[in-house]
């Protein structure tokens, strides 16, 4: 190589330099951008950055009243788990409960008070400030109050328990209106009615599934949607494998397999609407075979003689020997339990069926027995002042009143009758006749959309309150719900709204309801309870008690038992036994199929549809996500040449919907099933315009006794529209193809 000249050298240095500079620049370019490091002004006591804290409160996703613990990091709610010390949830929680976070951080929450710009129902709202809203409403109500027309003010809420309920009641009472009512699609009206008849007490007893050996469920999806799924789940697990060498057996009677049906050892698809009859058939066997040897045996056999197995078998389409076998098992097993729910208690024969099931329990001597029906001790504190109309009958009366212009102000809270009742009820039309509609709500659901004023409420995770689980857990219990995060928006808790309304209205309301806030009110009430129990307690005792209660999220007296178990005489039940067969709307000839709408564990009656996690959660039985479907038995589908994804028009006497078909192996031929919960016209981006709402095509019938919607008593016909629509689901081939995925074949285990 020749020696390098100076010129070359300079060039080399130049090149190297350029490279080096480039390198440095590159290094700089991959630097992370500058962030701010913002301290608190004053740090709270228990603050420790990067470490999570848990706060206990009460779940509000359904009316089971599970205690929950919420994980908080840097002031944000991160996760919801069951409260370990709460007797209902015992640290566990269902999908719905855990999705509460989606409600809290839901992008579609109402962030400020709204008023509709001009005409109602157009969904055009504009924000106003609280004072304006409250004064307008307050003055309107107070005028009525002065004119002594306060009865023209109506309050319709969802299922409200605890002291919020009392607050509502007191408010209306002081106002001078007797029209405080509740409506909740999932309210077990039929059971309550039946228990009033059979047991003389209109309460839900504690169903001791945990200790049962044979659980006979008539349509009650106790693991998915019925009353208190999480608690039943715990019980179920224990009943199955929790006891040494004693595995409880479960039998499910329902036309379409639910979660509980899938879990059951025997799944019996009796003819829809005849489940109660089956119960009577079993009862008949219990008596006639001498399993029952009570003093009133004669009355029993007399009342049941019409329901011999052969007759029942013919009516229910359940083989006679199956009835006999079931009855014997039921009688012979140490702890048997029969429960009714779901479609069984949603026919025109709802109460009759429930009574039949009660009869079964009475004959098997399950009352007050472990593993049977245990009547609750008197509740921790009686928060429900007086019986108020609950269920569809109440709505019908309200509608009538609105139609006839008897209603000037309608206050709505956390209830969505427009969605969860048939169009036949005519709520939507009637509400137009009401001059002033005020909705207390966190989301703009179908009913809220019809309001003149929308007063945004806190999510339960932001509010004070308390709750008494119903049914109880065998001993007095009450839960406290406290705000676990600072509220996100310019909202108030329902209680606070009522209190400030009271202040606006004036008169004796502010004097009687002098509490500054819901928190104060709840605290007051708890002190009262506390004093009642330990009369000689000092102030700081209560302070301790209160702090402990808040920390635990629940207070109870595990020691205190139900006291003397009431074992009512069977006479009233015997008297009430009738022929429980549901009448269906629509003739069998014209409408060949029975429509079986079912509540899903995800959406329940549709209140969960705005939570993305639940929308994304595959339906447990079908793995379908987003949107709805109609289920047919494979045989039926073959007959009609229908395949999955064919869009069917489901027509009832009340209306029709178009929905894609899904072939479902575990549904009775002649029955078509549709999930409830989708098909919202409002209710946020995740729920709106997705699927259809079967309740709209349900005929507006009731069980007279229960006064609630008979949503499982409608016949439909189906027509293949020829269109196709993908049913979005994650499942591939749902057969094992002989692969030992669910465990080695028997004998190899």
């Amino acid at each position, binding site marked *: 190589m020749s020696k390098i000249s100076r010129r070359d050298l300079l060039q080399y240095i130049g090149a190297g330099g350029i490279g080096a500079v480039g390198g440095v620049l590159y290094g700089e370019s991959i630097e992370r951008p500058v962030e701010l490091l913002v301290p608190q002004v004053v740090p709270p006591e228990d603050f420790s950055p990067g470490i999570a804290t848990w706060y206990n409160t009460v779940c509000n996703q359904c009316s089971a009243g599970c205690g929950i613990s919420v994980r908080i990091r840097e002031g944000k709610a*991160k*996760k919801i788990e069951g409260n370990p010390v709460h007797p209902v949830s015992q640290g566990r929680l269902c999908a719905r409960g855990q999705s509460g976070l*989606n409600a809290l951080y839901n992008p579609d929450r109402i962030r400020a008070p709204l008023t509709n710009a001009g005409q109602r129902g157009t969904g055009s709202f504009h924000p106003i400030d609280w004072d304006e809203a409250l004064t307008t409403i307050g003055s309107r109500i107070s005028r009525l109050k002065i004119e002594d027309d306060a009865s023209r003010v109506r309050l319709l809420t969802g299922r409200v328990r605890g002291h919020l309920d009392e607050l509502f009641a007191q408010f209306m009472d002081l106002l001078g209106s007797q029209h405080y009512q509740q409506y909740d699609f999932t309210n077990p009206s039929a059971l309550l009615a039946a228990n009033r008849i059979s047991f003389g007490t209109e309460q839900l007893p504690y169903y001791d599934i945990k200790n049962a050996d044979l659980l006979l469920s008539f349509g009650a999806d106790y693991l998915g949607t019925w009353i208190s799924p999480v608690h039943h789940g715990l019980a179920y*697990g224990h009943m199955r494998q929790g006891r040494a060498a004693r595995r409880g057996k479960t039998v499910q009677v329902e036309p379409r397999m639910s979660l509980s049906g899938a879990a059951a050892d025997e799944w019996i698809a009796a003819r829809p609407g005849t489940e109660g009859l089956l119960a009577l058939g079993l009862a008949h066997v219990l008596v006639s075979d001498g399993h029952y040897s009570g003093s009133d045996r004669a009355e029993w056999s007399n009342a049941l003689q019409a329901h011999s197995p052969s007759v029942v078998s013919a009516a229910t389409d359940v083989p006679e020997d199956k009835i006999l076998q079931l009855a014997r098992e039921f009688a012979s097993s140490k702890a048997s339990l029969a429960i009714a729910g779901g479609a069984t208690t949603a026919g025109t024969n709802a109460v009759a069926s429930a009574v039949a099931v009660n009869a079964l329990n009475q004959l098997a001597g399950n009352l007050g027995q472990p593993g049977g029906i245990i009547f609750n001790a008197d509740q921790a504190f009686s928060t429900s002042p007086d019986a108020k109309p609950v269920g569809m009958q109440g709505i019908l009366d309200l509608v009538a009143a609105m139609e006839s212009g008897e209603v000037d102000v309608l206050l709505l809270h956390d209830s969505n009758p427009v969605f969860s009742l048939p169009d036949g009820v005519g709520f939507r039309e009637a509400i137009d006749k009401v001059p002033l509609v005020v909705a207390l709500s966190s989301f703009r659901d179908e009913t809220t959309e019809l309001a003149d004023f929308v007063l945004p409420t806190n999510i339960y995770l932001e509010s004070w309150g308390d709750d008494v689980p119903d049914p109880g857990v065998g001993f007095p219990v009450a839960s406290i719900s406290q705000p676990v995060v600072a509220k996100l928006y310019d909202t108030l808790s329902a209680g606070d709204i009522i209190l400030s309304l009271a202040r606006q209205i004036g008169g004796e309301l502010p004097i009687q309801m002098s509490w500054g806030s819901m928190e104060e009110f709840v605290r007051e009430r708890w002190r009262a309870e506390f004093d009642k129990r330990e009369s000689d307690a000092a102030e700081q005792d209560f302070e301790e008690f209160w702090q402990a209660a808040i920390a635990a999220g629940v207070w109870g007296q595990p020691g205190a038992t139900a006291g003397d178990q009431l074992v009512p005489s069977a006479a009233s039940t015997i008297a009430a036994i009738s022929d429980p067969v549901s009448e269906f709307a629509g003739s069998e000839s014209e409408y060949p199929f029975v429509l079986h709408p079912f509540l899903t564990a995800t959406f329940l009656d549709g209140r969960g549809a705005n939570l993305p996690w639940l*929308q*994304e959660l595959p339906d447990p039985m079908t*793995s379908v996500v987003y949107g709805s479907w109609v289920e047919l*038995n494979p045989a039926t589908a073959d007959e009609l040449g229908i395949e999955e994804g064919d869009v069917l028009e489901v027509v009832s006497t009340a209306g029709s919907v178009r929905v894609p078909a899904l072939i479902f192996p575990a549904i009775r031929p002649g029955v078509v099933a549709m999930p409830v919960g989708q098909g919202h016209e409002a209710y946020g981006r995740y729920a709106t315009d997705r699927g259809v709402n079967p309740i709209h095509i349900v005929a507006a019938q009731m069980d007279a006794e229960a006064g609630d919607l008979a949503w499982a008593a409608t016949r439909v016909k189906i027509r293949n529209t020829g269109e196709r629509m993908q049913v979005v689901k994650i499942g591939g081939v749902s057969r094992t193809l002989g692969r030992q995925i*669910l465990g080695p074949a028997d004998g190899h285990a």
Partner: protein
Amino acid sequence: MVSTFVEKLKAYSKPGYYDEFEYHWTMTIDLDRCTGCEACVVACQAENNLPIVGEKRYARNREIKWIRIERYWEGDYPDVKMGFIPILCQHCDDAPCETVCPVFATYHNRDGLNTQVYNRCIGTRSCAIYCPYEVRYFNWFTYTWDEPLEQQLNPDVSVREKGVMEKCTFCIQRIRIAKDNAKDDDKRRVRDGEVVPACVQSCPTEAMVFGDSNDPEAEVSKKMKNERGYKVLEELNTTPSVVYLKKAHA
């Protein structure tokens, strides 16, 4: 020289490079308790920042669910039965996914966990091909949360970017916290029940049990010995760390 070579070879022959584990995290799932309620699925989504993928992407099988319930029908109406089985990463001790990853983005750690390092992953997706349980989920897109849903995201778990593989970690962040506490408590071992993954925690029927199977006293070790116990696809010899208990008959 030769000996070291032999050692290396031995090490390589064991996918995880570990002959025994400090802890051997193991899960049992009792199918006789499992009701398919899917509480675990949501629990996992909440704990591990799983994205909300949306209907369109679901329709094309782009969902991400670290634990999913599989459904199998047996028989036909009226004698039809449904079998649920939760499928999550089985944390195999001889995991095919570990050997195939060209960049060691997935490896066996000293706790017998089959871990996935998101930062290292280049997205060849070969691990998903090799995994017989199909529990590895790929980020086909960059997923976003509608404001303010992102406030729920768990700060202990990183949000994965598009192009990387992700999967169940047995809630390693919870294991990490438990170990951290144990270490402060004069370096004792983590006690049974101190670590509870989100899915196990939520399960209403207590079908799932999680623990260290190195500890014979741990509940999970006892459950594993149950005569109903089996492992899914055991014949493939991936030695999974999830033991299922077969559904019992009435």
